[in-house]
């Protein structure tokens, strides 16, 4: 229950990460929320897990009424160089009801070593449309989307559709590419494909991500330069003008 015991560095990492998650959730959710809990293991490999408390999920209220629950878990290790924290897997699951049970409405998963044919980072929508429509009708009127939906319902329109729920997928820089959608069509839905489709999609995805990588560097060149120095490069700013500031708008955009 402390950070100052043997394996201190790993515990420090676990504590820092769990504190960040706690701060994020407690700073957003107005309902009371317990701190996250981390477990590290004494052994041959440096591993720790972090998850929300209570174990039945963080109860979420809408206009004071318990409506949903959020389950968050991370499994972390040192990276192969032993230098950085690496997330091996993460799960963010949203359930109807204030205690998570049964099937989630939807989930965001990341699994570093995923099964063949399954994207390492993906969204799964479990809910029947009625279940999602129900929680959407209960969304209150304190947000733009909630107000619009409430007006629509009050004017006698149909109940909300699943298509009205917009799930974020990485923002401007880290969004999926066409190759990702083509791969879903082939892998999951069996769309007829050419023999070399895997190679073609891999090549295209690599092109896309290299382009995005260059763009992301421009969003925060100082951060990129710092990392390059860490990796052993010599990086200096050689122009007369000031180093461009990080584009916080891009880094913060949903």
């Amino acid at each position: 229950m402390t950070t100052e015991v043997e394996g201190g560095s790993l515990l420090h990492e676990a504590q820092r990460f769990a504190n960040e998650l706690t701060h994020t959730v407690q700073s957003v959710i107005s309902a009371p929320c317990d701190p996250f809990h981390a477990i590290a293991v004494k052994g041959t490999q440096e591993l720790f897990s972090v998850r929300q408390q209570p174990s039945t999920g963080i109860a979420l209220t809408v206009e004071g009424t318990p409506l949903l629950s959020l389950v968050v878990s991370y499994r972390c290790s040192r990276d192969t160089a032993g230098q950085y924290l690496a997330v091996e897997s993460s799960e963010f699951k949203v359930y109807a009801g204030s205690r998570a049970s049964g099937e989630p409405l939807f989930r965001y998963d990341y699994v570093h070593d995923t099964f063949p044919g399954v994207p390492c980072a993906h969204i799964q929508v479990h809910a029947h449309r009625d279940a999602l429509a129900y929680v959407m009708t209960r969304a209150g009127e304190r947000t733009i989307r909630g107000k619009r939906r409430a007006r629509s319902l009050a004017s006698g329109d149909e109940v909300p559709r699943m298509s009205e729920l917009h799930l974020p997928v990485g923002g401007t820089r880290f969004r999926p590419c066409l190759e990702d959608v083509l791969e879903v069509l082939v892998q999951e839905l069996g769309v007829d494909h050419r023999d070399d489709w895997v190679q073609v999609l891999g090549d295209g995805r690599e092109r896309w991500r290299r382009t995005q990588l260059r763009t992301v560097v421009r969003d925060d060149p100082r951060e990129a330069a710092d990392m390059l120095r860490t990796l052993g490069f010599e990086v200096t700013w050689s122009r007369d003008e000031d180093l461009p500031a990080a584009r916080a708008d891009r880094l913060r955009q949903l």
Partner: protein
Amino acid sequence: MATVELLTAQELEERRRQILTAIGGNEESLRERAQDYLLTADELAALTELDEIDWLLRGAA
């Protein structure tokens, strides 16, 4: 502030036994019903903890 525990393999194994005892001891049945999304909140929480412990034990070997 978040809480952190540093556990040994023996402590993880003991916790695993306690969780199984608390849910009646039948892990196979628990996992079968999990496949069909039929777990109560307490059962789902227990299964989540069992899976977490199993993963942590990988590093405790």
